[in-house]
């Protein structure tokens, strides 16, 4: 296999040997994709903006005014923030431990352990949500063990509430913390730790003043990615949450299917899109995060 650089040089040689029109011909290979993206991606997004400003057949921003003054939207908005930040915090905490554990394994064993991180990546969110109803339910595995050990009083309400949603979302989000943090930990200069050790620093001190501070860019990248993803969660809160755990996505579904208010559905969609875009913009400005995800 020739190195990447070689291909690129030869690619340039190919371009130079041909006229611009021959090169321009390649544009036509992208056209079918462009047509599809235009018709089934850009136009639908346009429809969301269009409907968010369409009240009873005329152009108006009333939809957004209704949303901002509605108690329901306000509650759902706060709920979405709470659930997202809570899930992100728990995911960072657990994901960091996994990354730390993986970074200290030898490469051969690390690949095997990485399989456990990739598994939730490849498993349908519905399969996992169903499993959580079996694990966390009133007669689920955890409660069976608890009541067997401590009697009926030990039963915990773990599902159809905030706890269930956060557990379900954490399961999904942990890998998104592990990847950037692991990349960061593996890139850290070992000599810094060795130097600190020679100077007599205790292992905890080394962790607190070298490893942890250096890994902050990885943590921030992972946490922002988790936030972006969790704002759009739909399946998990619908299955594992209760009536008070409705998130923005579920509100859109409610407006679309139950109350048939397409204007409010679209206005909520635009709000969700803007929040996500804002977080994405912050994420893409961070130094060194591009490598972690692309």
């Amino acid at each position, binding site marked *: 296999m020739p190195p990447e650089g070689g291909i690129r040089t030869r690619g340039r040689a190919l371009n130079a040997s041909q006229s611009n029109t021959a090169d321009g011909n390649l544009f036509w290979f992208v056209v079918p994709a462009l047509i599809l993206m235009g018709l089934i991606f850009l136009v639908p997004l346009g429809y969301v903006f269009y409907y968010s400003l369409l009240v009873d057949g005329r152009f108006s921003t009333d939809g957004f005014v209704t949303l901002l003054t509605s108690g329901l939207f306000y509650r759902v908005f706060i709920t979405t923030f709470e659930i997202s930040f809570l899930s992100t915090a728990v995911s960072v905490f657990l994901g960091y431990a996994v990354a730390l554990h993986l970074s200290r394994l030898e490469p051969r064993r690390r690949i095997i352990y990485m399989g456990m991180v990739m598994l939730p990546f490849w*498993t349908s969110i519905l*399969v996992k949500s169903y499993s959580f109803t079996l694990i966390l339910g009133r007669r689920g595995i955890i409660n069976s063990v608890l009541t067997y050990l401590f009697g009926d009083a030990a039963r915990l309400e773990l599902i159809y509430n905030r706890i269930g949603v956060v557990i379900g979302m954490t399961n999904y989000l942990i890998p998104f913390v592990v990847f950037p943090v692991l990349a960061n930990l593996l890139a850290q200069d070992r*000599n810094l730790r060795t130097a600190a050790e020679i100077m007599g620093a205790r292992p905890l001190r080394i962790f607190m003043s070298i490893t942890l501070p250096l890994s902050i860019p990885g943590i921030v990248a992972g946490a922002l990615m988790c936030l972006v993803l969790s704002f759009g969660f739909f399946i998990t809160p619908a299955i594992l949450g209760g009536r008070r755990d409705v998130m923005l996505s579920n509100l859109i579904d409610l407006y679309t299917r139950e109350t048939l208010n397409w204007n409010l559905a679209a206005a909520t969609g635009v709000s969700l899109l803007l929040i996500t875009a804002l977080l994405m913009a912050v994420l893409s400005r961070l130094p060194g995060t591009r490598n972690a995800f692309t």
Partner: protein
Amino acid sequence: MHSRSAISVKPSRWLPGWLQAAFVPTWAWVAYGLMVVPCILVIPMSFAGEDQLVFPPRQFSLDLYRKFFGSVVWMEALKQSVVVASGTAVLATCIGVSAAYGFVRGRFFGRSVIGFLLFSPMLVPAVVLALGVYLYFARLGLTSTTLGIVFAHTVLTLPFVVVTSSSGMRQIDVNVELAATMMGASRFVILTRVVLPQVWPSVLASALLAFLISFDEAVLTWFIAGAGTATLPVVMFSSLKSEVSPIIAAAATLLMTTTMLLSLIIALLTKRASDE
């Protein structure tokens, strides 16, 4: 690691001995458990029979599978899932491989903007796209049609197809294509007769990936599928929202086995592609 110095005789410890020995692994294993257990639990549960809420299962039975394959609703959903995922795989691979070739070899105006556009479905929350497609298809009369679902899934899978197939194309020798050009072959002939025979493992991998993502997709399909066109994930979602029927365990195991099998094949194909 190339930065390792000669001074580092013993591996440096990050935490006090007892903490390192117990704390971090315990903490990590909680996370491993949280990731892995929900993914594999459905397998033993699907063989437990009706009394599925007892763990570990007391008996081995194929009752749930018998019920799954005997149920019209579930079988229709399974059939629909296979039809939609196959259609998506074919359409997304044709469009995506062509786009990947244009991107890898072409240098045209607006290339980076178009590239960003192709990847933007990954950045937009699924529900927002689902709502847009729902409103748009309602206007076109494409709601709850199989064709509409295939189109929507193709948009969703296109970024993955482009990435997977172009990674294969970057590794082949451009001089072979140059030779074909000099002998008068058109770009289309070069793609189908020169490039594809060389990169077929990554093209097959991207087709399977498209099948896989479509087979698993729930949010978009939930918005645009109707009673007759619901896929397996949609039927699972609606039955999980109402009553939790034990048959879901069998459906989930089938969904999971398909996913695992396909992702294993994809991993082997992409590994083969990068080894060559």
